[in-house]
């Protein structure tokens, strides 16, 4: 049962991260493999603000801003120029791998290779329907619920959200219908970048200790969650993250915990082989 609790927390962190990741894919058609490096950079910004005596939950704002600004810059000055050259999608993916190396190891060069942790305690523990959760974990879950509700509200009820959905469905048609797609794409990267920064920070808080390369393989979980729900589908991402997060932690109770991520890997590979458009998705026109 405790593994179920861990699973919920992992799923919450993963859901925040995956929604941001899949939104980027939706509007720009880029698999941004540098996502994990921006996550961990954001976490380190929060960490340094926290080191200066600011409460970790307040310092989190610094991480969110870092994620938003870094992602916006990345799209504006790297991905967009490359995409304008009409290259194969794989070129941009290779570029994103290069950026990931720069982001991750640039950080490591600055902060060194050691582990750090936030100045913060886990808070008191609560018994909750048979689960034992710390207040940190409860806050993470609260943040996750707020994010998912927020994203839902954004997509469903605001002009901006509708324009984002239109841009993701068909960029040219959206542009011809008078939507300023370039503005929408930029805004999407700001919002998804903020989610990336937020996810990075709560990921690091949840992990307890972390270092510059801690999020390097997180991209695999992200990809698994995204492909499970269908690439570019925010609701699919929520479903995928919940499934992957729970499955990895719950399976850790039954098999060697070293293998807990294997289930995510296998889910991803199976999805790519048989249903690359997600469990609920259907083939796209293009």
């Amino acid at each position, binding site marked *: 049962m405790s593994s179920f609790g861990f699973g919920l927390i992992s799923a919450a962190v993963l859901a925040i991260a995956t929604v941001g990741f899949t939104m980027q894919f939706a509007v720009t058609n880029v698999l941004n493999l540098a996502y994990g490096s921006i996550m961990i950079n954001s976490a380190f910004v929060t960490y340094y603000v926290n080191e200066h005596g600011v409460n970790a939950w307040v310092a989190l704002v610094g991480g969110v801003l870092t994620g938003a600004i870094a992602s916006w810059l990345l799209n504006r000055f790297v991905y967009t120029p490359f995409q304008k050259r009409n290259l194969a999608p*794989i070129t941009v993916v*290779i570029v994103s791998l290069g950026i990931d190396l720069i982001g991750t190891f640039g950080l490591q060069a600055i902060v060194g290779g050691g582990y750090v942790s936030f100045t913060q305690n886990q808070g008191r523990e609560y018994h909750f329907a048979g689960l034992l959760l710390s207040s940190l974990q409860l806050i993470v879950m609260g943040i996750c619920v707020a994010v998912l509700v927020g994203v839902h509200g954004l997509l469903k009820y605001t002009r901006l959200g509708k324009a984002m959905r239109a841009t993701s469905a068909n960029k040219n048609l959206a542009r011809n219908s008078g939507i300023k797609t370039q503005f929408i794409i930029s805004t999407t990267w700001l919002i998804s970048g903020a989610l990336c920064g937020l996810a990075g920070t709560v990921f690091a808080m949840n992990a307890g200790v972390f270092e510059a390369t801690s999020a390097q*393989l997180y991209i695999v979980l992200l990809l698994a969650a995204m492909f499970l729900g269908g690439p570019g589908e925010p609701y699919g991402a929520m479903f995928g993250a919940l499934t992957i997060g729970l499955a990895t932690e719950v399976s850790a109770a039954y098999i*060697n915990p*070293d293998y807990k991520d294997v289930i995510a890997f296998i889910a991803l590979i199976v999805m790519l082989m048989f249903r690359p458009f997600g469990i609920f998705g259907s083939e796209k026109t293009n």
Partner: protein
Amino acid sequence: MSSYGYYIAIILVYASVDAMACLGLSLQFGVAGVSNFGFIIFQSVGAYVAAVLSMPNASTSNGGFQKYILGWHLPWPFPWIGAALAGGLLALPFVFIVGKRLRGDFAAVGLLVSAVLLNLLATNYVPLFNGAAGISLVPAPFQSHFNPQGLSYQFAYGLVAVILTVGAYFLVKRITESPYGRSLRAMRDNDIVADSLGKDLRMQRMSVLVVGGMIAGLSGAILVEFITLWAPGAWGYAETIVLFAAIIIGGAGNHKGAVLGAILVPVGFEEVTRYLPPVGNPALVPALEWVAIGLLIVLFLWFRPDGILPERRQILSGNKNAPAPVPTAADDESDALIKIGDLHKLDLHKLLHLEPTGNDHHVIFSTKGLTKVFNGVTVVSDVSIDIQQGRLTGMIGPNGAGKSTTLAMLAGTLPPSSGQIFYEGQDITSMPSNKRALNGIVRTFQLASEFKKLTVLENLVSAIPRQSGDTFVGSMRGKRYWGAEDRANIERAQELLEGFGLTQYADSYAGGLSGGQRRLVEIMRALLAEPKILLLDEPMAGVHPNLAHRIGDQLTNLCRGGMTIVMVEHELSIMDAFCDPVIVLAEGKVLAQGTMSELRQKQEVVEAYLVG
């Protein structure tokens, strides 16, 4: 001074191992466009297999302190052969991922994840790989006869490694320069189009995965028996990125560039950083190395995407000295002034090896209830048409009428949601598009579909079916086997090119042509695919009207000789002049059918056009 000798020997081995890996990856990524982000697995598995084949039984040797499988204690060269075979066999399951329908970047991610997964398993599963500790005491070849630490032994080892690298170079070169290599490059530039011209994408991708995997496996074997260690930590997925950096910098698709990249990146980085004084924190230098590799990838892809040694343009015209004119902006504008050439004089039947069969206008090609639904939207609805042999059937309709979608289903590019397609009475609904092409059903595309980094002449020749050098085995048999036939094919393509007035662009990259010129290339390419049924999707768009009518005359000639053509076209004057019958589609349904003059009388057809 013998320490320099050792140093040189070691560098020879390392450089050979990296160069071989880069050659394998250059074939896969540079030539065939298969982004194998899991390349390192092949090298590590080869290394592992070589290790366990050469080591003695795990439980009886060295007190059984390490665990591994096999332990056959085979003499050289069997462990190396086993490594190459293992690398090749390992490729087979990955064909499921790089198979034909998956987007290239999705497949790449699948391979990347596989690499991470296998590394995770190797690190944690002790009985197979001895866990994170890895295997040590791998015997060097002939270590009972010679001293592996001796200078002459190490030099000999380096020499063997270099010889095998040269062998790998000639192997990938042989494949690349053959007609099969041309097909691989065509697939790289546009896989859907290559598929529609009859190329078996699955087979092509499998062959480069197997060959590249064998080379990688062998390179792993060379490394592991030299350093006598194998540990999973050395084979992280990031090592693949280093190899990608190497071939991007050296020049993907140019195998000399791959070797150069191997020397500059993996070897160069390792050797240069060896001499750096220890500064800052201990993680600093390795971290900066990774940053540098990331920067090099991004900067090269931006400033010099073809690398230091770009892929060489293949001059097929035989005119090696004349520089191929690069079409300029001025040419774009002067499309109307295009030299029409002597198209009307061309005997296409002879050129295309078509036996005039005579016409009986029987129903050769038909559909029953053909329907296509995308995301809940019905684009083509219950279309049943009969195409008569030897006729030039036109297909018109407003935008969004489903013309291109229908054509794509006829050619097999898109699977129908329901309905059937019959060819000479046989149900071919589930026949893949490349098989249809080989059976004579060939299509062109509405959007630009030239193979960009193939010359115009290569574009044309690539379409010719059943070339003896266009199989993996054929390419292995070398130029002596396929050369004469290829020469003849090139001459045919040149003759066609002359008829269409594009001879001066024979050796230009097709990607540099103007829109109208590219359409012509596409028509010629489709003709060289020797179609029985030719499906043309707006072939005349952007083509000068005079030339369009000459092409129309030739198409009519071809129909007279027995070819069946279906042509989607917006230009009604073309329909008037050449097409009979004409099918009108609107909103995914067949609205009417008949000659153009009959259709002009029909109120609903005129309305559909006016409304659309």
